[in-house]
């Protein structure tokens, strides 16, 4: 498996380039910010871009809503109409548990 943890190797911006991010780069950084600590330069670059870009500000808000919804989903899903164990499966499991 090719590793590309080094931001340069995976084509991510670094250094002064961080001060002129494109929407594509800033979207990726906003996402990574949910999963790792961004460097100070990355945070600064992102702030500059977000100041100027309404689309990316909206994207950030939507990502946070998405995360909130995902945490809540299992609870909601349990109440939705949906699959249940078939009679066969239920009996098979009951039998396995009695052994």
């Amino acid at each position: 498996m090719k590793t590309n943890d080094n931001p340069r190797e995976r084509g991510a911006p670094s250094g002064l380039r961080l001060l002129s991010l494109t929407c594509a780069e800033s979207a990726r950084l906003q996402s990574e910010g949910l999963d790792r600590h961004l460097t100070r330069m990355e945070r600064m670059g992102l702030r500059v871009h977000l100041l100027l870009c309404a689309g990316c500000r909206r994207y950030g808000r939507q990502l946070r809503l998405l995360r909130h919804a995902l945490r809540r989903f299992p609870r909601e899903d349990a109440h939705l109409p949906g699959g249940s164990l078939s009679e066969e499966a239920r009996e098979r499991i009951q039998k396995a548990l009695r052994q």
Partner: protein
Amino acid sequence: MGEETRNLLPQEPGDNRTDPPAVEATRWVEEHGDILFRHALARVRNAAQAEDLVQETFLAALKARDRFAGRSSERTWLVGILKHKLIDHLRKSARETSFTDLECLAETEASSFMQEGLSRGKWQAETQPQDWHADPSASLDREAFWLVFRECLGGLPARVADAFLLREMDGLETGDICTSLGISPGNFWVMLHRARLALRRCLEINWFAKE
């Protein structure tokens, strides 16, 4: 909820937890079988595998039932066991298949942004995030929203969804997930990013733009 109330009561003889194992197991399957099955099905998308996971969960619970302290509800306890079984399952299946799904959503990312010219890297006009109402979180109280949400989640490529949901639903950290699934953090973050782009777009098209 029933389970919670029961656990607030003093434990007395005749309490469920003192039932013989077979009786207890029967009750578990009746009370929690469907919920566990749906939890599992949402993640493995294959009824037979989901059934196996439910069975393994109950078997493990039966062995460990002395350790169930009653601090959490019985269901929470069982769901916790299922989570471990699920991670084991994903780890094994990650070894069996190679991680090619990274490319699956590459198209989603590429088509979200301009690819050429001076505007390279800007949002495409038709995929640029739109305003989602004044209070989009109000949607979270509507059952219809969750049906759409479930559809959109189901549309993610299986391997991407595995990694994405370990992070977002189970709240595991990058390092743990990468070790389990045998992927590099760099690839993992790219997958998450693409999954979020795809999910966002699906919700916008099928819910927020329609409402």
